[in-house]
């Protein structure tokens, strides 16, 4: 536990000085706040911008942050030094993962509040996002682990992130995309948050998100087995 806390505390200090990762955490909450408070169009669905940016946030911030942090540590050899100092790979991943999850939940909280979510609805909003963030983190960890350096990680992260972050938004414009996007967890997150207070979670939502989660676990397991942590 002490190692997890040490990694967590290190990550707070490190990320505060890492602008490229910090911006990932802040960009969508800031955009959501600005859009929700400045744009009001008649007939626009309730929480429109908050829901849209929340779904994009889920597909982008945790995935990019996890991949960037792990690949940078591999490239700079800091991860190897940690592992040689008796930090277990699981402790490292939990320390970094907890940090990213908490920051993403804080960002999501800001998005939710800016969209007018309160009380139980806000809690539902955060629960749905929390699950989506977890899947994104696993995909990011798989990319970071399989990459030798940041450059290699970025070239994998960007297309994956674009798919998961933009599918929910593109689905609103095109039915064909919507049909295909259904199989992505970020689209399911989008469907679920758009249904808060209207429709509950369906078995389909749960099965698809669980399926995505399992695929992410398998991908991470494969990357870990193939490349190792350091």
């Amino acid at each position, binding site marked *: 536990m002490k*190692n997890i806390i040490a990694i967590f505390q*290190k990550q707070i200090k*490190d990320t505060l000085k890492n602008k490229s990762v910090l911006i990932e955490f802040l960009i969508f909450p800031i955009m959501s706040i600005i859009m929700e408070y400045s744009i009001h169009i008649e007939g626009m669905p309730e929480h429109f911008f908050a829901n849209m940016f929340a779904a994009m946030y889920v597909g982008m911030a945790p995935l990019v942050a996890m991949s960037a942090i792990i690949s940078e540590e591999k490239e700079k050899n*800091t991860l190897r030094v940690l592992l040689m*100092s*008796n930090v277990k790979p699981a402790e490292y991943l939990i320390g970094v993962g907890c940090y990213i999850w908490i920051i993403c939940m804080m960002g999501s909280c800001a998005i939710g509040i800016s969209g007018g979510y309160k009380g139980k609805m806000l809690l539902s909003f955060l629960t749905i996002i929390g699950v989506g963030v977890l899947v994104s983190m696993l995909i990011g960890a798989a990319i970071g682990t399989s990459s030798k350096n940041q450059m290699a990680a970025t070239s994998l992260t960007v297309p994956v992130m674009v798919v998961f972050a933009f599918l929910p938004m593109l689905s609103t414009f095109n039915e064909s995309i919507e049909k295909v996007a259904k199989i992505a967890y970020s689209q399911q997150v989008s469907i679920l948050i758009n249904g808060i207070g209207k429709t509950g979670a369906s078995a389909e939502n749960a099965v698809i998100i669980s399926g995505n989660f399992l695929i992410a676990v398998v991908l991470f397991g494969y990357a870990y087995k193939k490349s190792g942590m350091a």
Partner: protein
Amino acid sequence: MEYVIEMQDVVRNFDRKEVLKGVNLKVSPGEIFGLLGPSGAGKTTIIKILTGQLRCTKGASMILGQDTGALEPFVYRKMGMMMDNLGLYERLSCYDNLKLFAKIYQVPRGRISEVLRQVDLADAAREPVSKLSKGMRGRLALARAVMNEPEILFLDEPSSGLDPQAVSMIHQLIKKEQERGAAIFLTTHNMEEASKLCDHIALLNEGKIVEYGSPKEICLRYNHQNKLQIRLLDGRNVALPNGSMAADEVKDYLEKEMVETIHSTEPSLETVFMELTGRRFE
């Protein structure tokens, strides 16, 4: 424990290439052991095997009595490491870099300031690593390596590319660690450093240890000429056999105050290496 590090007939292959070809070595507690060899000789591979980062293809490798293929956590707590790629957090300050490892090793906070003073980085404690010079980074990595007062300290090319002042400081700290009782496993291609610091050295060439002993022993072993070279004040160079037969002549030069310098003819470690392998240290 008689030896803290033992390698017996260690072979390591990368794909089909045999990088280590039956390496044998032993390091006692409190000893400074130097592994010398040119780039690509297999020095880093040996360190990686000893620290559990790589497994050997054949042979046995032990550290603190444990097989390096399956090191227990307690072994890692007794090891300190400074690898060629220093592995420092660039955005964090010197203090914060060490604070992370102080928490991991569970050493008191006071130890951070202590090691920073030892490597003369106390004034730069709050500086981010990205603003440090190469020498300062090396010293910081060494401070991190000794923070948990390890029983074995692995130093991979600790003085490579550093200025003489930084090298001198690193050497002082290595000696201090030895006085504390730590065994130091040092890889270098700096012969002078090895001669100055090491109790024993092994010369590694193309994955094989070609010579082992104390630096002095090795140089004497290859002193084929075994002569005294005397440079006289009048500019003449005189070579005399190193034995009683030359005593009168040497005495004569000394009595007449004609001697500028006297040297024995034992070769340098580099010359020995060249004799053994036909190649230079690069």
